[in-house]
């Protein structure tokens, strides 16, 4: 028997005002009631007209729930952690939860964690769990409220006599109970919906699912080959696009053999870009073959003449010059404190460019209607500040005419927060409309036209008073990219009264982008290494020195003490090995300790063990936090020991894993141990805290083992041999 509340017409959807001033919309579609929250009634109506089932959650009569994840899933676990928070407050049975990507509609699903009054869908900066923590819990609590209201109406009892247990609403006075599934066909909509502030949400001690060992929702699909990445999309009539972009960033191409290329079998069109030549063909093989045969003359570019390995001496001169840089942060009076210090330690640290090397080269699929008024894009993107990845602007059509189908990302690490590849694919698809185009970057494209973590130089000075206390820290960063080189130069958890960091800008015309942990990698390396030098110079233990500095930051101190305990810091390392320590603040707070050995003839550094203690606030999904720390440390070891992009006369010298090697399984450590400290504080990001620990921990261990300092990332065997011979 059909129930009145299961009407499929959109006219039955009701618009509700909420007490918080925003609105929450309850709609029904088929048997699946939907919930979305939004602040603009017109937009809601439009959105619902466009997406039949758009919502935070769908509830079916069999009790199964589908919760929408608004964040990209690039391996960091958003497909589990965010829906888990929702389910917790909804009091759902996690075993009945399925997860799907939300539509890419920022007004509804955006995170408010960027700037007051704004919303963004943007999976970067380790902000997902941190910024969605209360959003997901509030939405889950509202879903629970609707279910309780509906039960109250059905039973004709006061709502405040109701309670929930997983997946059921109970009325204890009468002994009545209804499962969420049974309520699906009894839904009634309240006049207003409350906003649930943090004080009205569960206390962390009441969590049933959050903080427990929960299997990640998308892992089964990732072990049987069924997990779909954008490159796996196949559409009827689909054709293939590739671009030749050269290896001199910013260079303009002139194609010399256009007619030969157009005459090749399967080639459909040549599409010139300012910086590239595009080829579209019937098959991927044909497109790649044509790409290989392109004869292109490349113009000079701003990077012409730039040699990355020769630039450091000019950087060092800049760092030592009296020029005024841009102040990144300043507290106290560093100049005065350095002048009055009993001893000043200084050090210079360098780092080469590094490349993201995500395993899935960039790609996308786009289909644009013949009249150019509608677009669909399948893509693995970290999203971005532009509405619908900038596609509406690119095509001059309204956002509601663009559907972004977010797919799993085969790694992001910051590279997929730059949607240059989406733009390219859409422009090709526009040329070929209405045929869908799959754009593929080859690995060579991905390396050579990468957007790297910038090369930089850090010049640091630390002033120490007569009691061995660090009273001043001056930090000068020379490099290209503003915050890309400046982030992480600030120390909030070291009690150093006088601190100053400044940035001196350079520019070389090389493409740059956020790379996991951004400036924290090079800057924490420099800071932690200099502190190690202070410890050595003052005859202090490196952990003891940091303990003093953390006296006013008990949470940071707890990670240091725990890591030291895990590593047995006070016991000698095995023969031929040494340990080094580093502390990193990147939202969450972590201390890492490694144990290494060095092959003095080859120059190879081997990391044997790594211990890490972390305070991330509420640990929403602890096993995933451990996975992030393990992975971040391995990626750190890879970048610190092996990785660098070099540039000669503006040309990128690397092109594939053959000349840009990554750490392999046989080089992985014997063990990585992670301990997460208990906390009920607001959750902090965990994706970028581990990676910056590695360089300084290794360098500090290397000093204890050899008495030599490593001052240039990466620590390649030849640099290690040079350091040993110095």
């Amino acid at each position, binding site marked *: 028997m059909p129930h009145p509340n299961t009407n499929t017409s959109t006219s039955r959807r009701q618009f509700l005002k909420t007490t918080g001033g925003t609105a929450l919309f309850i709609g029904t579609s088929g048997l699946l009631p939907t919930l979305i929250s939004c602040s603009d009634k017109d937009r809601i109506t439009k959105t619902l007209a466009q997406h039949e089932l758009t919502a935070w959650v769908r509830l079916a009569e069999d009790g199964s729930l589908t919760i929408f994840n608004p964040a990209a899933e*690039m*391996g*960091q*676990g958003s497909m589990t952690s965010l829906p888990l928070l929702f389910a917790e407050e909804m009091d759902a049975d996690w075993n009945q939860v399925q997860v799907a990507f939300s539509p890419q509609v920022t007004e509804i699903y955006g995170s408010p964690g960027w700037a007051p009054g704004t919303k963004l869908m943007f999976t970067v900066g380790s902000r997902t769990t941190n910024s969605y923590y209360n959003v997901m819990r509030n939405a889950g609590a509202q879903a629970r409220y609707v279910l309780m209201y509906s039960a109250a109406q059905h039973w004709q009892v006061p709502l405040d006599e109701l309670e929930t247990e997983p997946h059921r609403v109970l009325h204890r006075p009468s002994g009545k109970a209804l499962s969420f599934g049974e309520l699906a066909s009894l839904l009634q909509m309240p006049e207003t919906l409350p906003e649930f502030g943090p004080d009205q949400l569960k206390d962390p001690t009441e969590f049933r699912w959050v903080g427990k060992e929960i*299997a*990640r929702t*998308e*892992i*089964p699909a*990732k*072990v*049987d*080959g*069924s*997990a*779909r*990445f954008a*490159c*796996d999309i*196949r559409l009827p009539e689909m054709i*293939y696009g590739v671009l030749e972009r050269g290896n001199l960033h910013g260079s303009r191409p002139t194609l010399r053999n256009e007619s030969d290329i157009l005459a090749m079998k399967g080639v459909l069109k040549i599409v010139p870009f300012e910086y590239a030549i595009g080829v579209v063909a019937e*098959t*991927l*093989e044909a497109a790649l073959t044509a790409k290989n045969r392109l004869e292109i003359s490349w113009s000079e570019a701003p990077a012409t003449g730039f040699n990355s390995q020769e630039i450091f001496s000019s950087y060092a001169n800049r760092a030592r010059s009296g020029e005024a840089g841009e102040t990144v942060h300043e507290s106290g009076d560093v100049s005065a404190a350095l002048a009055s210090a009993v001893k000043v330690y200084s050090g210079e640290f360098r780092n080469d460019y590094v490349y993201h*090397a*995500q*395993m*899935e*080269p960039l790609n996308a699929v786009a289909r644009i209607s013949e009249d150019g008024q509608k677009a669909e894009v399948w893509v693995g993107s970290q999203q971005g500040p532009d509405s619908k990845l900038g596609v509406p602007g690119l095509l001059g059509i309204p956002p509601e005419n663009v559907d972004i189908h977010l797919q*799993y*990302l*085969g*790694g*992001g*690490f910051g590279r997929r927060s730059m949607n240059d590849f989406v733009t390219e694919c859409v422009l090709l698809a526009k040329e070929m409309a209405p045929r869908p185009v799959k754009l*593929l970057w*080859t*690995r*060579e494209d991905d390396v050579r036209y990468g957007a790297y973590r910038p090369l930089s130089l850090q010049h640091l000075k630390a002033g120490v008073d007569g009691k061995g206390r660090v009273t001043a820290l001056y930090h000068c960063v020379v490099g290209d990219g503003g915050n890309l080189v400046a982030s992480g130069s600030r120390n909030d958890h070291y009690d150093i009264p006088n601190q100053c960091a400044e940035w001196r800008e350079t520019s070389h015309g090389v493409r740059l982008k956020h790379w996991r942990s951004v400036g924290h990698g090079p800057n924490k390396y420099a800071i932690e290494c200099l502190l190690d030098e202070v410890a050595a110079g003052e005859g202090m233990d490196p952990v003891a020195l940091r303990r003093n500095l953390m006296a006013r930051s008990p949470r940071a101190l707890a990670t240091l003490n725990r890591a030291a305990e895990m590593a047995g810091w006070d016991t000698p390392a095995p023969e031929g090995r040494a340990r080094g320590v580093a502390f990193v603040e990147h939202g969450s707070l972590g201390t890492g300790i490694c144990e290494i050995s060095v092959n003095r003839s080859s120059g190879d550094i081997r990391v044997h063990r790594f211990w890490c203690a972390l305070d991330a606030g509420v640990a929403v999904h602890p*096993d*995933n936090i451990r*996975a992030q720390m*393990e*992975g971040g*440390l*391995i*990626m750190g070891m*890879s970048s610190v020991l092996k990785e660098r992009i070099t540039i000669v006369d503006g040309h990128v010298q690397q092109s*594939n*894993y*053959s000349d840009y090697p*990554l*750490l*392999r*399984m*046989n*080089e*992985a450590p014997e*063990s*990585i141990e992670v301990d997460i400290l208990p906390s009920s504080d607001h959750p902090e990001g965990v994706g970028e805290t581990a990676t910056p620990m590695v360089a300084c921990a290794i360098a500090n261990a290397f000093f204890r083992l050899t008495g030599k300092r490593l001052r240039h990332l990466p620590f390649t065997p030849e640099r290690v041999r040079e350091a040993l011979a110095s």
Partner: protein
Amino acid sequence: MAQFELLINGTRHQVEADPGASLLWILREDLGLTGTKYGCGIAQCGTCTIHVDGNPMRACALRVENVSGGQQITTIEGLSEGGNHPLQEAWIAAQVPQCGYCQPGQIMQAAALLRQNPTADRETIRNYMSGVLCRCGTYMRILEAIERAGKAMTESKTA
């Protein structure tokens, strides 16, 4: 263009391709077996690892004419029915994947190892798996999962 017959996951497929065409693109773009991924195209990353007559091979480096003579090609889709190979179960138990892109290649490489040597020690596993890259850094869990699966396979044989 020429006709080739490929025996993949126990099924015969007729494909049209130019001699020299890479098996990887035929699997992915022509046959829709997209579990096998493209990573480098030069047999450096192992992401496209499949089995040819039980041996782990990089699909990107195989020419279609060299695998169309009746060789048994196995991709991740054909490794087990319903994704229940002991390695797949161990991968879930150890919660190995992060982004997941390299994992079909990792699992296919590991499956070849355990078929030859289910009691492989840690050093053997590390060396055997070193041709398959993982950028997310899941190596520690891959090791754990292979050891777990090897143990399960050995126990089920002796049971």
